[in-house]
């Protein structure tokens, strides 16, 4: 199982701040996106690559082949708008 934290608009769109994905660990980033899209079919577009950013252990990754385990902190969120 992989746990995914959600922030900002993405959390509002999926209606929760934490999602538990029943997929094997370790999982690639693209597999995490696919599992989220399957669990939230109406919001499949907002979790897609290019739409939502992914951080593993609080570090941004651009690599869809990057791997997360059930021990890692995984987060998805929209492009950032600080400052």
């Amino acid at each position, binding site marked *: 199982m992989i746990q995914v934290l959600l*922030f900002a608009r993405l959390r509002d769109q999926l209606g929760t701040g934490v999602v538990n994905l029943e997929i094997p660990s370790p999982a690639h980033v693209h597999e995490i996106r696919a599992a989220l899209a399957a669990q939230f079919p109406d919001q499949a577009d907002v979790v897609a690559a290019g739409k939502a950013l992914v951080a593993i252990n609080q570090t941004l990754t651009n690599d869809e082949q990057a791997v997360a385990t059930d021990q890692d902190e995984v*987060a998805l969120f929209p492009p950032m708008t*600080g400052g």
Partner: protein
Amino acid sequence: MTVDNWQDRIQVQTADFSIDEEYQRLSANNAEDGAVVFFVGRVRDRNLGDQVSLLELEHYPGMTEKALQGIVDDARCRWQLGRVSVVHRVGTMNVEEQIVFVGVSSAHRGNAFEAAEYIMDYLKSRAPFWKKERILNAAGDVQEERWVDARDSDAAALERWV
């Protein structure tokens, strides 16, 4: 490489900050730096043609501080810097309130100007903050609350540092 962490101040807080105190931290007992440059970001009353009455800033606790420290570390690799301060507020802010302080001291102004701008540019699209704004209609009533979209110009601003 080693980083002079004692020279960095990375702070995420709900409370307002004092520009006087932040300037003191950059300049007090600091004879080697002839330049201090700082930037203050504030809440504007308009966005995309609409009247804004309130800004709400969310962040990702833990990652935010880590991302900001990473940006400051990168700036230190590019320029000779003395002290660096990044103070970013989260929570609810009214129009005209201060949101963010980025301050840099350096021996000479060139480094300080460039590093301050670099840190601000990266902070806007690489540190996990998200803005939500409350919009008023012409009658002054609340029309909607909406998440602010990232701007293409913010992403483009990073290109020149590559």
